[in-house]
């Protein structure tokens, strides 16, 4: 005989509030869990750890959607992931780590990786993982992709979209990355004091890349890309909260991220078109983010080291504190770009500097500055080069040259709001010449 029907759902007993997950639980938990498992099992087990995290996340999805979220989801998911690793190691009779794993079983299996005093442990594990991802033997973009996968819980599709690359390419790169980590026997440890600064540079560069990838293309796939920026900010904040990361350069990096992201809400018009700085509604800029950015910029001034992040943050700050476009201190921005070009020469920086030149000394001076960029050819495939040229020609009233440049830019632009903006410019110019 079937059991009698129950009128109260048993799931309600210890899970009275199913669905009570903290915001971004899965994303942040992924970084914590990767960190905790790698600390226990070693970086050479990265692939196994990734499988375990994925397995735990999928089991959580099944169980929690149908049975409610348990009171301590972190502990639940940790236990599932640990068991997965241990089972896999036990099956693998050739594994040299088997003995370690079994020892671990006896002593610590019952202990939660989500310790009662989680803050320090979590932060340390996550930071260790960040430093592991930023291992000096890895190329910068590989570091960023690995960080996204392990620290930020991004899947292959998301990483590929974030870097405007194919999934196959990203997968190949991640496989190579893991192989390298295995070969180099990278240690899952915070670096020793003497190598800290060198390693920290790599960490900051990766975080900056992460942010930039989100920022420069955040118009193509708005939500995801803003997420990328948010993740970069979260990790930089975490780095700063730890003594090893609390350095002026890190404050400068966070300042520039905050000052740039403050302008996110204003970057698109109501119809989805890209708005240039001068056309943006400054009242929609995020004042709290600007204030926080300026505070970090002030703290970045400690010490005597001037990094590219200081200069970038200084430029962003100049834009943020101007009450309107006309009131922008372009001379100061130009000075920052001059310093930046000296510190870290790049055609992209030189192009941005040309815009500052144009705003200080007129559009023709801007065009001359572009022509004077030593390796300007490297920018030929970037829509931005042609868009800036078009803009400066238009300001000079050279409609034909402006239209030609805008058309080139349009052919190269990859995201919809930019395409829309360029089409509008071309239409406007054609209407003028009729």
């Amino acid at each position: 005989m079937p059991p009698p029907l129950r009128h109260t759902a048993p799931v309600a007993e210890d899970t009275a509030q199913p669905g009570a997950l903290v915001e971004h639980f899965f994303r942040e938990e992924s970084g914590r869990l990767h960190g905790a498992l790698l600390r226990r099992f070693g970086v050479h087990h990265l692939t196994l750890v990734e499988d375990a995290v994925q397995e735990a996340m999928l089991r959580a999805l099944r169980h929690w959607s149908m049975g409610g979220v348990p009171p301590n989801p972190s502990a639940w998911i940790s236990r599932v992931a640990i068991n997965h690793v241990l089972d896999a190691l036990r099956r693998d009779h050739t594994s040299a780590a088997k003995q370690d794993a079994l020892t671990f079983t006896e002593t610590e299996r019952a202990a939660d990786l989500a310790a009662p005093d989680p803050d320090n442990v979590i932060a340390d594990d996550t930071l260790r993982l960040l430093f592991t991802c930023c291992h000096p033997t890895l190329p910068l973009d590989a570091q960023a992709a690995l960080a996204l996968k392990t620290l930020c819980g991004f899947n292959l599709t998301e990483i590929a979209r974030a870097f405007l690359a194919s999934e196959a390419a990203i997968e190949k790169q991640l496989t190579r990355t893991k192989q390298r980590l295995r070969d180099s026997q990278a240690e899952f440890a915070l670096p020793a004091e003497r190598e800290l600064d060198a390693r920290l540079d790599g960490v900051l560069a990766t975080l900056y890349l992460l942010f930039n990838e989100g920022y420069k293309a955040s118009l193509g796939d708005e939500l995801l890309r803003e997420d990328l920026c948010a993740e970069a900010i979260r990790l930089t904040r975490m780095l700063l909260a730890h003594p090893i990361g609390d350095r002026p350069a890190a404050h400068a990096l966070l300042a520039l991220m905050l000052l740039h992201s403050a302008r996110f809400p204003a970057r698109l018009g109501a119809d989805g078109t890209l708005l240039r700085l001068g056309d943006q509604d400054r009242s929609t800029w995020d004042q709290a983010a600007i204030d926080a950015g300026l505070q970090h910029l002030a703290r970045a001034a400690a010490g005597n080291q001037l990094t590219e992040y200081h200069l970038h943050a200084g430029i962003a700050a100049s834009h943020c504190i101007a009450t309107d476009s006309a009131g922008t201190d372009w001379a100061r921005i130009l000075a920052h770009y001059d310093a930046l070009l000296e510190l870290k020469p790049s055609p992209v920086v030189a192009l941005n500097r040309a815009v500052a030149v144009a705003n200080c000394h007129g559009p023709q001076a801007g065009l001359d500055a572009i022509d004077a960029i030593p390796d300007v050819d490297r920018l030929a495939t970037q829509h931005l080069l042609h868009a800036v040229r078009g803009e400066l020609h238009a300001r000079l009233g050279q409609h034909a040259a402006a239209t030609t440049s805008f058309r080139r830019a349009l052919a190269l632009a990859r995201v919809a709001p930019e395409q829309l903006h360029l089409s509008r410019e071309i239409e406007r110019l054609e209407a003028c010449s009729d």
Partner: protein
Amino acid sequence: MSHPHLLLFRNTGPETHAHLSADERQDLIERWNAWFVGLRDAGKALDGRPLELSGRLVSGPGGKRVTDGPFAESNEAVGGYVLLNVADLDEATAIAQQHPGLEHGLIIEVRPMPPTCHLGVVTGPA
């Protein structure tokens, strides 16, 4: 008058959700739970829980044949259930159609339950 109906969830295995992003997973859990809690609070859902994806299959005279199964990979495996107390099959179907998992490939079987067991003993609320 209300009658018990059983919703059986199929296609709930890892292969169904592996491609979802972290945020999509979280979103699915929250919407799925909200769907259930809404029904529970309205007195429509009496019970519901997931099933482990594998266990044992027992068959043969005397139950001598015991094998591992059903296979976890199978889309056909029942992954969970919800017991409803609703007016009729149409209401149960309408409830199933509100399920947030459908867009990710969830398959829901809606089965009315007779009020009596095969021995003719009344087992449920009249």
